[in-house]
């Protein structure tokens, strides 16, 4: 197995560059991120952004980057159960999927693109293939934030070492009704060597050209979380991901994202969604597992009429910790953003939600909303909600709300009076709590799939069993 891995070092970049049939600027791009990474201190809990994420125990020098093979059509379709379930749900709700991409370490990557998507000029492939075949097109989007220091240490590491990921490019005026489905699965539990933790660095780029319309479903997780209690004692592993979505003028992008890692995995994500004039971006971020799960989600509303709606679903159990930071940036007038994060925590799980609404001086008539509701199910569960407003314009509509508390005992009693035992009643209430948010999804099949994923985690059976 050791031939499949790289330690995290500058040489890894040399190796990656040699291995890939990629243009020379790719290596420079990676090295620029690497240099910035070296100059950036390791975060501590004293950093505002990291104050409750326990990261000190993660020793990057013990990690080895897992290796992914490029995706080919006609490769092995025996996906892990969790990805099979994604395909099943979305295939049932849509006649044909626009595309399927699966990447797993130690197995061949799989790619499939519908005839319709092909004929309309859509590009949908893993990031390595994109570098080899579509370098010029990809370059400006990839380079834009790849070495940006404000993203912090882990995103810079991803910028240097990205070893899996996706490029989705939708040309002007192209509308595709059925979604693209993508998955990245890692095995960190069943690591046969067992003496080192694995690391993956997914890099996702989505570009929707003017007046296009597209939806993407993306799953990242441990492909072997069955009975994941045992994973806690295994060496710590890392997923550091970086996602950039570009929604051009009048384009409409829906992004459904689910992550579920085993309990030895630190999952750190940085997401930038950039929305141009009259563009619309809708996303749901679902987090169902990991040791420490942290995501910074930036939404940049760049021109008049840009709108975004971002939903969050977090279901934590055991000792899992979740930290979601959302930053709604209104950089132009008449822009609209809506954020709705719902968190339910079992056992000793904990969560911190920090939501910032930033309104530029020029962004008059901004309409921004932010809501964060937390249900504490476990006796040791803890949730914090920290909203922040930075408003420089004077004619705006901004509001936020947060709640933290246990399940309403009157709801439990009502269901009990209908014969439902407490455990079943609580599950029903929690699923309803999430369903209210998922109702806003317009991607056919998404709400059903996510409700099933969440209900399996509530049952503790583990999604990827």
């Amino acid at each position: 197995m050791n031939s499949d891995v790289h330690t995290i070092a500058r040489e890894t970049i040399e190796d990656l560059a040699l291995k890939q049939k990629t243009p020379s600027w790719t290596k420079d791009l990676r090295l620029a991120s690497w240099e910035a990474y070296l100059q950036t201190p390791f975060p501590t809990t004293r950093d505002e952004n990291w104050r409750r994420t326990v990261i000190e125990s993660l020793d990057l020098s013990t990690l080895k980057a897992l290796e992914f093979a490029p995706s080919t059509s006609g490769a092995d379709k025996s996906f892990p159960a969790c990805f099979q379930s994604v395909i099943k749900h979305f295939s049932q709700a849509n006649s044909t999927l626009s595309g399927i991409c699966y990447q797993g370490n130690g197995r061949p990557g799989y790619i499939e693109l519908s005839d319709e998507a092909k004929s309309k000029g859509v590009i949908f492939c893993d990031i390595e293939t994109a570098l080899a075949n579509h370098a010029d097109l990809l370059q400006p989007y990839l380079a834009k934030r790849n070495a940006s220091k404000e993203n912090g240490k882990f995103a810079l590491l991803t910028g240097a070492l990205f070893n899996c990921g996706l490029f989705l490019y939708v040309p002007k005026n192209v509308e595709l009704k059925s979604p693209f489905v993508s998955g990245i699965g890692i095995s960190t539990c069943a690591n046969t060597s067992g003496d080192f933790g694995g690391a993956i660095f997914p890099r996702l780029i989505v570009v929707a050209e003017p007046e296009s319309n597209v939806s993407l479903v993306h799953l990242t997780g441990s492909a072997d979380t069955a009975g994941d209690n045992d994973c806690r004692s295994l060496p710590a592993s890392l997923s550091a991901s970086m996602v950039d979505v570009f929604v051009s003028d009048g384009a409409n992008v829906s992004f459904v994202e689910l992550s579920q890692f085993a309990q030895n995995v630190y999952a750190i994500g940085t997401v930038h969604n950039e929305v141009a004039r009259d563009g619309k971006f809708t996303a749901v971020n679902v987090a169902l597992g990991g040791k420490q799960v942290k995501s910074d989600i930036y939404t940049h509303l760049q021109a008049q009429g840009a709108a975004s709606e971002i939903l969050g679903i977090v279901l934590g159990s055991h000792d899992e910790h979740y930290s979601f930071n959302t930053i709604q940036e209104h950089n132009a007038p008449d822009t609209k953003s809506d954020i709705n994060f719902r968190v339910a925590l079992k056992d000793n799980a904990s969560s911190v939600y920090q939501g910032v609404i930033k309104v530029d001086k020029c962004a008059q008539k901004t309409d921004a909303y932010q809501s964060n509701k937390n249900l504490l199910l476990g006796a040791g569960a803890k949730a914090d909600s920290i909203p922040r407003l930075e408003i420089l314009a004077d004619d705006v509509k901004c509001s936020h709300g947060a709640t933290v508390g246990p399940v309403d005992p009157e709801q439990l009693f009502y269901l009990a009076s209908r014969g439902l035992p407490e455990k079943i009643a609580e599950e029903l209430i929690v699923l309803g709590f999430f369903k209210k948010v998922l109702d806003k999804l317009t991607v056919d099949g998404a709400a059903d799939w996510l409700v099933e994923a969440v209900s399996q985690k509530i049952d503790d059976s583990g999604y990827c069993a």
Partner: protein
Amino acid sequence: MTSREPILVIKDLHVAVEDKQILKGVNLTINKGEVHALMGRNGSGKSTLGYTLMGHPRYHITQGKVLFKGKDLSEMTADERARAGMYLAFQYPVAIPGVSVSNFLRASVKAVRGQDVPVKEFRKELKEHLTKLGVKEDFLSRYVNDGFSGGEKKRLEILQMALMKPQMALLDETDSGLDIDALKTVSAGITALAGPEMGILLITHYQRILNYVTPQFVHVMQDGQIVLSGSGELAHKLEAEGYDFVTKEPAVATQSRT
């Protein structure tokens, strides 16, 4: 002829909520097939009796006991009571956002009947009840009591009662907030469900529902006790004279009518 087989026996029941004594010695026996009305002013303890019988965790029995089908209720949780055949139609039904009426009904019917009902069969059964209650089918895909009108909430309570087929139904102010048409529909629903095997306790502030659902027995509660019991006629007297005369008459022990 009623069988005179007691389904609910309440003996010297004292109940407190957070150290506040609300029920102060309630005695009441309800036999199979009987419809009892429990009347009284607001705050007299009527709803407390309903919640206590259903097993709300905030209501504590401090003295006395309740036998349901011969079994001591204090040993049963609310969900156990429901599965044993106790039903409370809430005065203020609780909203469960995100949970559809059909999912909720299927879950509770499964819990109460102890087995899954085949989807097709269940749909058919539901449809019949919906028609009787004058409710459209899209009701089923809405979320439980979420944004419901007063009339819709009460109809859902009766729909659940129809599906759960309880042996002892406690109907707490099921008439409140209903216009006359809704009241007629809901009352017809209750009357259709009543039968020789079921006991009903109608908790109500006003007499008007009793024009549609006829009780054999009427009790008046005041300050946590039943102070007056009588036949259905008593309700009309209360309607005519108000609750004031009750305080002037001595309490009639409920047992005396047996």
